[in-house]
């Protein structure tokens, strides 16, 4: 197996006010994969993410990026943060500029790139998230879903290798979720490694290559998404149930209603399959 792109080993972190952040967290993300991190509020997902690009530094334990340990000096952090793009949950707390274009240019300008390069990257990033038509708009006139996409563009413009998103689907209505999903799929096809946090086991099962479960500051299980059915106990330990599509698929296969199709990842896919086999 090749070297993982990002690897945390037994990371411990405690906030200055004494509250625990991470307690022996290990996680490995391989290049080009789609990773969903599942955990309740307060399980340490955000703390983990802030370790991914050096915003927080482990008290003990190691963080490796592309096989080398993270260097927490200024140059090292610069390099790491340009490779690991972090999109926070609340757009209103990460967009500061008056206009969309200006905000997206914040990161690449800080990289010290030339104006022409920055301009080109800003346009490319806006296009990747489908916001090029709205680039001149003031940020505060955008919808919540559009703001989320601007946040992603702001990180993409730094051309990271790994995109880390904290609860990207939270607060989005169905149409916006589908738009955002299309953006993520596009990025993944172009080779981007993605790690995102979610509450939603159904979404994780449908979308991810690999699922990581998190509770009480540690990553308590990691497995390939199709193997989810085998991890019912670990899910139950963090208060989640298997997506019902797994049970339904099993029941229908037992009754011979579904034939040799590959595993099905959502109830709507299951329905589509049933209808198709019906014909």
């Amino acid at each position, binding site marked *: 197996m090749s070297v993982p792109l990002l690897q945390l080993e037994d990371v411990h972190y405690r906030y200055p006010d004494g509250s625990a952040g991470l307690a022996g967290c290990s996680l490995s993300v391989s290049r080009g994969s789609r990773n969903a991190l599942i955990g309740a509020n307060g399980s340490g997902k955000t703390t983990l993410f802030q370790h991914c690009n050096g915003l927080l530094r482990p008290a003990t334990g190691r963080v490796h990026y592309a096989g080398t340990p993270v260097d927490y000096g200024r140059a090292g952090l610069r390099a790491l943060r340009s490779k690991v793009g972090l999109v926070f949950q609340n757009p209103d707390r990460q967009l500061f*500029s*008056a206009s969309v274009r200006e905000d997206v240019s914040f990161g690449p300008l800080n990289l010290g790139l030339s104006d022409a390069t920055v301009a080109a990257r800003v346009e490319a990033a806006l296009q990747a998230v489908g916001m090029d038509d709205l680039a001149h708009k003031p940020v505060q006139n955008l919808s919540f879903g559009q703001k989320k996409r601007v946040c992603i563009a702001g990180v993409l413009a730094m051309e990271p290798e790994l995109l880390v998103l904290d609860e990207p689907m939270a607060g989005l209505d169905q149409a916006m979720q589908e738009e955002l999903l299309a953006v993520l799929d596009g990025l993944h096809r172009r080779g981007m490694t993605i790690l995102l946090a979610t509450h939603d086991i159904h979404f994780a099962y449908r979308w991810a290559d690999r699922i990581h479960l998190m509770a009480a500051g540690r990553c308590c299980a990691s497995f390939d998404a199709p193997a989810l059915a085998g991890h019912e106990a670990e899910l139950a330990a963090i208060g989640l149930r298997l997506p019902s599509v797994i049970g339904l698929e099993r029941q229908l296969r037992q009754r011979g209603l579904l034939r040799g199709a590959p595993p099905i990842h959502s109830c709507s896919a299951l329905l589509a399959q049933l209808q198709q086999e019906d014909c």
Partner: protein
Amino acid sequence: MHIMEGFLPIEHAVGWSVAAAPFVAWGIRSVNRRIRENPEQRMLLGVAAAFTFVLSALKLPSVTGSCSHPTGTGLGAVLFGPAAMAPIGAVVLLFQALLLAHGGLTTLGANIFSMAVVGPFAAYGIFALARRLKASLAVSVFLAASLADLLTYVTTSVQLAWAFPDPVGGFGASFLKFAGIFALTQIPLAISEGLLTVVICNALARF
């Protein structure tokens, strides 16, 4: 720069409280009038106080490399008016004493006088004067914020020197002592605060 709890003799502590009281009372009357005209102002004042408190907890990179905190009175005076800044500043200073042990209760009057009266009025006056003299917005804002910061600190030095005249050189020598010691941190801070306030106003102007 807050004078700590218990530092001023009792006559001075009472005296500065008496000196600050009319300004705060006038400020309260003025904001009460604003609230009667527009009830939403009640919420605005409370949120503005929280804003000022949080802003003054911001660590600023200072010219000398050290870090220090802005007073926020200059920006506050320009945004909310000097009259509102007296009650807002009084609450912020009280909270700094109660939540951070920064300043004190017996010295609250003296601190209100320097930071919630002199600072905001100086900022407002300097801003108005600079605008009348056709200075650009940026220059006016810089002068208002940095000079208000400096005047606040001069006032504090006066308060300390008055309370503790030098046994050899009297008030003047004492003033130079206090002003000299705190100049080390305060002058770079005043410049940083002026620059920050300009950046804030530039950003605000674009929204």
